């Protein structure tokens, strides 16, 4: 390991993996639980960063977190209302909101990039509080542990169980006197809050906020989610959530190694896209391969019988 990747590179990969795990957890809720493919993730991530940065620049580093999350809730709320109350296809609802957010993000930021170099943020405060070289890691870990704990608690409540059932069996949900419009709305609001929180933390981590920073985020988060669920299995809900976090960390380590091996940074998005496409297509490819094997065997057996 030492030759390919230094400890410092590994550490920052883990830090990034932990923060980006919040986006993967957001998709864990919307994609795996609610079965809604929410394409507003990219814009929502940038929105969180923009709102968080503006509030931090105004001198409120703590307020930046709830402000960013609140903005994410709003974004999720709009996406959810479009699909549950106004009959907009869920994919389209996400795309529409994502497009609208581009303008909103520029309006929030006032320009296309913000510089947080000399601003007090949670990370600079953590440096003072924790000291040493691990303050970023500690802060990121703190957030992830808190989010996973709250999320797991929430998914065991009446509302959380209803959200999980909504994506699992629609007819059972209605027969259980649950309004799917409510569960989808709450689910997307929570998922928006987590995405925006991740955006806010990444902005503070990198000390910059850019209008294009969210591009491709949904694919990258899906890749982490799929890596997590494939490698760490689909056992209990708790293990799945932990698997998603580890998947995100693993993804960032692989990226760090790839960059170390001189892969151009611009190739990252293609690699993520291929991972997601292959992982989602795999069951279909397997089924087709099995069918063709069977068909070939049956045809061969028939030919043999004719020859006799």
């Amino acid at each position, binding site marked *: 390991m030492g030759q390919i990747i230094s400890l410092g590179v590994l550490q920052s990969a883990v830090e990034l993996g932990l923060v980006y795990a919040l986006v993967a957890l957001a998709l864990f809720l919307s994609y795996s639980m609610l079965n809604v493919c929410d394409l507003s993730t990219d814009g929502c991530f940038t929105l969180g960063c923009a709102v968080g940065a503006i509030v931090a620049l105004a001198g409120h580093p703590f307020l930046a977190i709830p402000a960013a999350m609140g903005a994410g809730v709003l974004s999720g709320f709009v996406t959810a209302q479009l699909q549950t109350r106004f009959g907009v296809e869920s994919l389209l609802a996400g795309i529409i909101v994502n497009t609208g957010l581009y303008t909103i993000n520029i309006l929030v930021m006032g320009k296309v990039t913000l510089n947080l170099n000399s601003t007090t943020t949670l990370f600079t405060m953590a440096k003072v509080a924790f000291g040493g070289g691990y303050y970023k890691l500690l802060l990121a870990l703190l957030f992830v542990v808190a989010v996973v704990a709250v999320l797991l*608690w*929430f998914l*065991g*409540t*009446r*509302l959380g*169980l*209803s959200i*999980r*059932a909504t994506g*699992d*069996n629609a*007819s*059972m*949900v*209605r*027969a*259980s*006197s*649950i*309004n*799917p419009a409510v569960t989808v709305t709450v689910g997307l609001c929570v998922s928006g809050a987590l995405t925006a929180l991740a955006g806010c933390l990444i902005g503070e981590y990198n000390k910059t906020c850019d209008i294009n920073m969210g591009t491709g985020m949904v694919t990258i988060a899906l890749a982490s989610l799929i890596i997590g669920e494939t490698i760490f299995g689909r056992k*209990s809900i708790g293990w799945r959530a932990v698997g998603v976090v580890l998947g995100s960390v693993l993804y960032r380590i692989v990226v760090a190694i790839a960059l170390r091996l001189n892969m151009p940074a611009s190739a990252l998005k293609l690699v993520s896209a291929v991972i997601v496409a292959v992982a989602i297509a795999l069951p279909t490819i397997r089924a087709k391969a099995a069918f063709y094997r069977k068909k070939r065997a049956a045809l061969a057996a028939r030919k043999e019988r004719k020859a006799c």
Partner: protein
Amino acid sequence: MLSIRHLSKTFNAGTVNEKQALRDLSLEVPDGDFITIIGSNGAGKSTLFNAICGTFYADAGEIVLAGADITYLPEYKRYHEIGHIFQDPMKGTAPHMTIEENLSIAYFRAGRAGTLRRVSRADKALFREQLALLDMGLEDRMKSPVGLLSGGQRQALTLLMATMVTPKLLLLDEHTAALDPATADKVLSLTMDIVSARRLTCLMVTHNMHQALSLGNRTIMMDGGKIVLDVRDETRAGMTVQDLLDQFAAGTGSALDADRILLSKKPQ
């Protein structure tokens, strides 16, 4: 008490596929009635159930359940008081959630539990106790995903879920038709146990004429979106399947045309 008054529903009105599924249908169901419903395919049996549950709103008429007008109440609100079991055993349970989680959702259905309420140890003990009544060993598999259960087990679990909170009305839409005969008998006897123990008001669609006459206290026959025959208690007690078929022919002017009904076997 369920009252259905002059209910009508037409699907695809104004097109070549126009279908009058319910025609000015009225039905009074006193508390404690167990009604079996028979009729040929397309007679409107399932449509009647869907109208009661609110899968669609009726074009005309009214539905009153336990004194409350539910004609324009959204589907999910009606299910506070109605238990519904479908023919397809996959429809009533969430496959990727555990038995315990499925039961929790059913348990919270009545709406009195808080939004952020979690199942307590006492609740779990209650689930165990209820599962044990099914006599399928499910009480020892509470942490298993429901997707691993057989169709019969899933239907039995659905039955438990539909009656967990005593409903004012239980709808059984051929709920044993997709099961193998032995399992169907088992699920049916469980159903009868629960219905009689809790004195549930129940409507049950069946294709089995013998079953229709032997179960419950009242039988109605539907044809073309209307009720063509309604017999109960003593009148029904003396009837044979042949009587039922003759009455049907007299009521509609045509013979019953559903093979599944005519071929259905007498239960042991």
